[in-house]
């Protein structure tokens, strides 16, 4: 299935900002993070289609997955 993956802040270093990628059905957020060699403990904010999700959430065809490290501001 086709997934749009967006990376932010330090996750972009040596990777990409946005890519359309193919994954087999049953792929979870954790699987995508692993495929990109993003250490799980560094994952801060994970969103699919603008909603927060957890690591075990399964992706569906056409989803947009956004991954951020832990961030703050204000």
């Amino acid at each position, binding site marked *: 299935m086709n997934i749009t993956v*967006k990376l*932010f*802040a*330090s996750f*972009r270093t040596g990777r990409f900002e946005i890519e359309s990628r193919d994954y087999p059905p049953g792929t979870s957020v954790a699987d995508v993070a692993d495929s990109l060699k993003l250490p799980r403990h*560094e994952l*801060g*904010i994970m*969103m699919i289609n*603008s*909603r*927060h999700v957890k690591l075990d959430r399964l992706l569906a065809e056409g989803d947009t997955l*956004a991954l*951020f*490290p*832990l*961030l*703050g*501001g*204000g």
Partner: protein
Amino acid sequence: MDKIARIDMGAAGGPKVTVGDLGQYAGLGGRAMTSLMVAAEVHPLAHALGAENKLVISPGMLSGTTGSMTGRLSVGCKSPLTGTIKESNAGGQAAQVLARLGYAAVVLEGKPEGDDLYKIVINKDGIQVIADNSLKLMDNYPLVAKLRQEYGDKVAYMTIGSAGERKLLAASIACTDPELRPTRHCGRGGVGAVMGAKRVKAIIIDDAGMKMRPPKDPEKYRDANRKFVEGLRKHPVTGEGLPAYGTNVLTNVLNEAGGYPTNNFKSGQFAESASLSGETQAALEIQRGGSATHGCHRGCVIQCSGIYNDKDGNYVTKQPEYETVWSHGGHCGISNLDTVARLDYMDDNIGVDTIEMGVTIGVAMDAGLAEFGDDAAAIRLMEEVEKGTPLGRILGSGAAITGKVFGVERVPVVKDQALPAYDPRAIQGIGVTYATTTQGADHTAGYAIATNILKVGGDVDPLKTEGQIELSRNLQIATAAIDSTGMCLFIAFAIMDQPETFQALLDMLGSFNGITMTGDDVVALGKKVLSAERDFNTRAGFNKHHDRLPRFFYNEPIAPHNQTFMMKDEELDEVFNW
């Protein structure tokens, strides 16, 4: 910090300085000092620009010590913008310097007759109030440059620009950073107008000959500070994210979450947000020879700020904050960082709150004064404020006034103060804070974004109402306490996640005074501050019906989540029931 200076600007025969002991305010600092004093001493029905109002300037409890992050300053008064009590908080050098001189508060009282303008010089020999009409209508950058010729570079300056002198309701008080740029502002609530009403143009604070404030238990204090700094360095937000990208790293986060108010709160996402993002901004700053990592005061180890240069490498302004990039950017449909930086410079120079000004320009665009996305028009509107034209004075008086004058229905304010950069329909928790804080719409008062969106210090679903009241309550209590310590609020990201870092903070507070501080003591302090503020607001005529958002947040769903603000009135009324 064993004394309080009161300067009666309206005394017969000219301004009169009285220095006294702490009395009932012993042990207080920062927001605790400003709010308890304003609540006790200012008539709640006073005109905010009248002689009865007081401008209380107070370093935090730990300011002026060797403790890191302790350089935040509180300025309090009755707000001319909101009519409520106000505490406006800034970095810069002023707090450290004032604290080392021993002042727990400097209070500007009364109001002079006539139109002489004054500067106040505070040093180890005392306080002098000097008339200086050569400073009239100067803006902050040229003003500080002129003052530096006389007072040099080893002092801290607090100044108002032309907006403060004109008593515009968005007027701020500028504090200089370590390099003496007037970039750190007590922005919110029109505190600059109160200083202007008292005819005080500049406060020059010189701590030559003074030492760091000594802790009661120096060894324990040093040890606690070391652990505290370790904790800040270790946490990904305070140790990596904020130093590398600054607060503007939030642009992409909020846009992705659908909570980025665009074109005056008409959408929760901005198509061009990427060009405004913190990632883009930091790369540009480094590429142009500026800096993406800079502290607003000495002793800050997080260093969330930076230096923004133009394409030729010339200084434009400090790194615009997320709130500013939003208010002058996406809120107005503007996607050019150079435009935002120029407007940030103008805000700092004229001396106005970047949130209030940006939101106002967006409201003016909604009124048809300019098109959304018209960079040149936004700058032109700011120039009106700079010149003090009738239009400029309307805009400089904020979003609520501008909305009324031009007949706009969608005016994002609570208690007449502009909403910051988070849409309460997509992030219910921050809406609770906007509605109920004693300050008028203010994100810092109870930063529910942390748990709703950033997942720091817990996890509450931003699109649901569950858990939001308790969250906002606890955050408002903790914030009122932190704002009293002199610590920058950004330490909260680390202390919410790391118990040992919170303990280090408690140990710093305790060992400085030779006592033991517990989490309960911090909560008690926060509640005391909030209770005093609520009491003032009640006496000033505010009731629960003012603790609401504008109706359009309840009536107009916003994309992409197509939700409204769903918190019930009865729920909002529970925030301060503890």
